[in-house]
């Protein structure tokens, strides 16, 4: 039912401009312990990149290292051709990079509206306009703008987190497990929206444990294991690679989807 060549063709059709590039990145939290051991990744303009891998592989660490939240000890990270190693997070935001962390991704004591406002802290003028866009995706939020994010359910928080990042109309979007905790219908919506946003030209890098869904919409995917990119390929190639299935995707989804 899938049609791999089409996907590949589409990827090829994208511009070749490299937006995000990690070359041989080494990074870690504790002194002397590297979590990323020479990770490489390329995201070209308009690409939707999926990253999958086992728990603790370093996927979140990879995103955090792009966003300057982890000490990068070796290698280089460039965004739009410029090295951004050591740059503060708010500078990256100025360059149009948005990030949804995996955990602690909302401001609990702020209301939903304020959380969203924080999303476009640097450009508050377009609030109304963007709010409409975001609440179009997650209608639930629109109705409870005054509720404090700390009292939201897990899924609702996730929606707020996504929305916050989408508020600022980024040119590069980093998503760490955006679908976790969302109900199936919202998950699908989220994937579709991410895909749509990406199609509109936003380079997107997405970490997902909902690997099948993720790879279905990705242009290219990376499998990260033990801090290194173990596999790379188009979403379809990875989806069908038996090794990837055996080690990372499992067969549960396969059975049911079939």
């Amino acid at each position: 039912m899938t049609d791999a060549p089409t996907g590949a063709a589409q990827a090829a059709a994208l511009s070749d401009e490299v937006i995000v590039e990690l070359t041989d990145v080494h990074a870690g939290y504790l002194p002397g312990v590297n979590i990323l051991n020479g990770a490489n990744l390329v995201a070209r303009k308009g690409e939707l990149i999926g990253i999958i891998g086992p728990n603790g592989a370093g996927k979140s660490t990879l995103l955090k290292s792009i966003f300057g939240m982890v000490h990068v000890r070796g290698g280089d990270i460039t965004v739009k051709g410029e090295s951004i190693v050591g740059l503060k997070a708010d500078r990256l935001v100025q360059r149009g990079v948005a990030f949804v962390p995996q955990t602690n991704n909302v401001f609990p004591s702020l209301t939903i509206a304020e959380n969203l406002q924080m999303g476009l802290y640097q450009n508050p003028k377009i609030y109304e306009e963007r709010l409409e866009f975001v609440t179009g995706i997650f209608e639930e939020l629109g109705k409870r703008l005054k509720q404090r994010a700390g009292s939201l359910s897990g899924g609702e928080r996730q929606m707020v987190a996504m929305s916050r990042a989408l508020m600022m109309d980024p040119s590069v979007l980093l998503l760490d497990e955006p679908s976790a905790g969302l109900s199936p219908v919202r998950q699908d919506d989220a994937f579709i929206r991410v895909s749509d946003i990406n199609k509109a030209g936003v380079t997107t890098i997405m970490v997902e444990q909902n690997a099948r869904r993720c790879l279905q919409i990705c242009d290219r995917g990376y499998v990260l294991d033990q801090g290194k990119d173990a596999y790379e390929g188009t979403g379809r190639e990875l989806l069908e690679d038996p090794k990837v299935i055996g080690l990372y995707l499992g067969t549960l989804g396969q059975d049911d989807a079939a």
Partner: protein
Amino acid sequence: MSVTRTASLGPLGRTQRGGPVGLRNPARRRPRSGLLALIAALASVMLAVLIAPAAFAAPGDDQEKTDFYFAGSITFEDAPIDGVVIGVDGGGFTAETKTDAEGKWRLYVPEKDTYRLKVDEDTLPEGVIIDAEQLPPGVSPVEGSTGEFDAEFGLTGTKIINLFLGEGERITTSFADQLIGRTIGGINFGLLLGLASMGAALIYGTTRLGNFAHGEMVSWGGVIAVLCTSFWSLPLWVGVVAAVIAGALLGWAMDAGLWGPLRKRGLGVVQLMIVSIGLSLALRYVLQFMIGGGTHQLPGASPDPMHFGPVTLSYIDITGMSISLVAILAMAYFLNRTRIGKATRAISDNPQLAAASGIDVDRVIRIVWIISGTLAAMSGVLWTYFRPGVQWNMGMQMLLLIFCAITLGGLGSAMGALIGSLIVGVAVEVSTLWIPTDLKYASALLALIIVLLVRPQGLFGRRERLG
């Protein structure tokens, strides 16, 4: 101001027994006849006229002076009685004197011993006697007589025996008036405290740092003002402006020189708290180094108060209260409505995420420190006028109350800091109507604990949800 007339003072200062004690007791002695009274009155008038020159001389001038004397004054219904005859007798020595126009008398005696004193009750006004029961403690009445008693010297060579006869009148403030007056005073104090608390609450609300050096930031304002005015004799307004600017500078310097770098090092809040304790110690003694250990007054401190019913306020109080209120409300607006204000709360929740949202965390925190320093310095100047006086450790003296206030209101809440401060202020001022004054701060602290018992998150705090 409502004025109460009290029968508080009896003749000899003890009125608990009720009624106009010390007045001649009809059961014990009948009033004299009209004739005698007339004579007595005439005599006293004549006497007064005759000895008028002597009245200008000090009491006791009629005697040979020694190192030891009895003295006192005699009044009836608050008016001095002139010409009362008092005699002393003991150790073979006797002497007599009369009270002067001020009701004063003095009797020198040759040595420190027990003497018997006798007031000639006939020279007292009509119907007045000296009730033995009402004599001061330590003066023992002689059995079977009135107006006669034994008195002894204490450690010194002087023994005073005042006889305040008749119903005294003392105007005291009624309880209700005291309550009102003190409540207003408490609000005044509370607003001042609120101004100081705002800064601490702001720092806490942004960085989760309980800044124990905040007291010194308050003192700093007062110290700069006093340096400018008292030490360098600059006009007051210069001092005040300088204090506020210096407050902002201190806030800036603290963040730029200390807290900013420490944030980069990733110290935990408890570690930072201990650092702030060290800083508080260092700063406090820097201030002592600057102005010494004494108290200094700013020009114009404690001007004449204005009276509004039971409430007395000076224009400084009113100015201070207005400034506090405006500043506090402005802060509340800043925190809840402006972008940076919201950013402070966002940073408090999660600095990393705040940075990831494009907030320049360091810059916002810098601004917060500057605002906090400014507010603290302003409250320092007001505190200087409120107390009044500048002292190197005056900020530390209110630190606990500041913490008490912001916790009571709910940590991190601007409105909470204001309400908490008012509660603390009123508790401190009003509670001593019931409890000893040396426990006045305990009342504020107790208020905190009671509030936390009922609302563990403080008045304006919110509980986090679970799961």
